[in-house]
């Protein structure tokens, strides 16, 4: 159809809003990153690329950068592998009510605020004393683990929590995706005598192609953005800054250290990082956004 006026009436306000609330702020981040910026001061000094030069020397920044990458790649890899297997398993459950029951249990954490669940875990699952995980470990005569209080275990603790809180969506999507694969493919494979694992890699995965790359792309982007659990479980970055990631370091620099220019410089690098990873991922997976 064609009606330029109608198209304009719809698109102009929509694009204006997007420009106002997405494009202008990201340009604002670029702009502020060039200053020693604090809105409470009457004068703010122009630093040029000074804030970026400082990033390279800031060990906390380097640590947050590494932590972010480790967190995203490990968590997403486990998340995708786990949800694929779960999807495969649940898709094999024939009784409707039963499979819904499984999906409800797995999806439940997705309907509660992440901040809420993060507090639940940090106050009732992870504490060395009285935390359920350690209570169970001690019942089995295993030395309790200091989850959120040791530099070594904090990141694993955050990863475990994030997987728990976030596998719901992907499990549902993969279960539906696997359900959608026509049964004749498997019957053909049966005749060839292919095992389950071979069938999974030769049939399920390739036929899941679009769902797979879509889910991976969305999961990666969303994991770069995670904030609440770090802010709650890793106060000020946690012991040894083992839980400091870029999002929380932006918040800390901007609103606690009140160094908004520096916070903006960190923001810009996070933005570029997400952009780069998304582009690489799309190249690898050839995500077809349809057009």
């Amino acid at each position: 159809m064609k009606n330029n006026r109608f198209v304009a009436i719809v698109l102009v306000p929509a694009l204006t809003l997007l420009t106002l609330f997405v494009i202008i702020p990201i340009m604002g981040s670029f702009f502020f990153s060039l200053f020693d910026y604090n809105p409470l001061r009457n004068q703010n000094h122009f630093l040029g690329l000074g804030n970026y030069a400082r990033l390279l020397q800031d060990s906390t920044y380097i640590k947050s950068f590494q932590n972010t990458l480790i967190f995203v790649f490990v968590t997403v890899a486990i998340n995708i592998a786990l949800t694929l297997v779960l999807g495969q398993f649940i898709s094999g459950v024939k009784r409707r009510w039963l499979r819904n029951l499984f999906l409800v249990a797995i999806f439940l954490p997705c309907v509660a605020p992440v901040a809420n669940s993060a507090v639940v875990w940090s106050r009732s699952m992870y504490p060395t004393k009285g935390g359920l995980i350690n209570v169970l470990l001690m019942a089995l005569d295993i030395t309790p683990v200091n989850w959120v209080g040791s530099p070594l275990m904090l990141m694993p603790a955050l990863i475990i929590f994030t997987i728990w809180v976030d596998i719901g969506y992907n499990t549902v999507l993969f279960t539906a995706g696997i359900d959608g694969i026509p049964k004749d493919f498997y019957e053909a494979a049966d005749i060839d005598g292919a095992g389950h694992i071979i069938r999974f890699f030769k049939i399920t995965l390739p036929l899941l192609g679009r769902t797979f790359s879509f889910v991976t792309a969305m999961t990666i982007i969303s994991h770069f953005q995670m904030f609440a659990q770090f802010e709650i479980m890793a106060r000020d970055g946690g012991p040894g800054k083992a839980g400091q990631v870029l999002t929380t370091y932006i918040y800390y620099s901007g609103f606690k250290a009140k160094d908004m220019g520096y916070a903006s410089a960190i923001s810009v690098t996070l933005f570029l990082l997400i952009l780069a990873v998304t582009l690489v991922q799309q190249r690898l997976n050839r995500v077809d956004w349809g057009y």
Partner: protein
Amino acid sequence: MHEGAKGVAEGVRKGIIFSIVTVFSLAMLTPYVWMLLLSFKHQAEINKANTFLPDVWTLRNYIKVFETVPMVHWFMNSVMVAVSATTIVLFTSTLVGFIFAKYKFRGKNIIFWFILATMMVPPQTTMVPSFLLIDRLGLYDKLPSLVIPGMVGGFGIFLCRQFIEDIPDSLCEAALIDGAKDFYIYWHVIIPLIRPAIGALTIFTFLIYWNEYMLPLLYLNNPLNMTLSLAISFFSTQRTTDVGAIMAVATLVMLPVTIVFIAFQKQFIKSIAMTGVK
């Protein structure tokens, strides 16, 4: 003989898979069960940390929560934000999706890419300028500050475009020949045909706004203006040691959406499955 063995093996395999999934699902629920149990325990019992079920069940924690923080008020704030945001996002996503699915115009691909690209800008990277912008617009410490910035979103547009493209052009053209105008077609032809997608987008959008943590943390100030997702950190930093009461808050925060979810689980799951790419 051979067939029978295979059947047994298949049965065993199914049994193992079934048990794995069952155990896993129970493990998923454990933190919530534990949260519930703690919320009914006395503080002294929690400090001792030597019981699983409460020795003495108490409602003290819940009473304390309602005495100290305005839970109902926060709940209403969350409802207002999530409902109004979802309504607006539904409207803009379907309308813009319709434009991209059914209209020909210059620069269409570039504009669509532009919209998709905005999805790659996470709000965390624009914390500082967004805050200043919200303040200049006079929205600071007001609930609309959570709604207005997200009124148009890439994901919803992308999803709706996909679904609307599947509607045969002939339907629209037939309506056009009958003299229907563009908005009429959108409202009376397109919308009824993409109900499932609308349902999916509703749930998806609602949950995003319901669970949002960072923006309310930044944009809202007065405790009375806060949303439910801030309740837990507000309460737990205020009464650091009172684990029982903290678990009561956590339970109350979860309760409303959990009830809705369990009551409509079938539709929920089906809708969520639809937000994936077909």
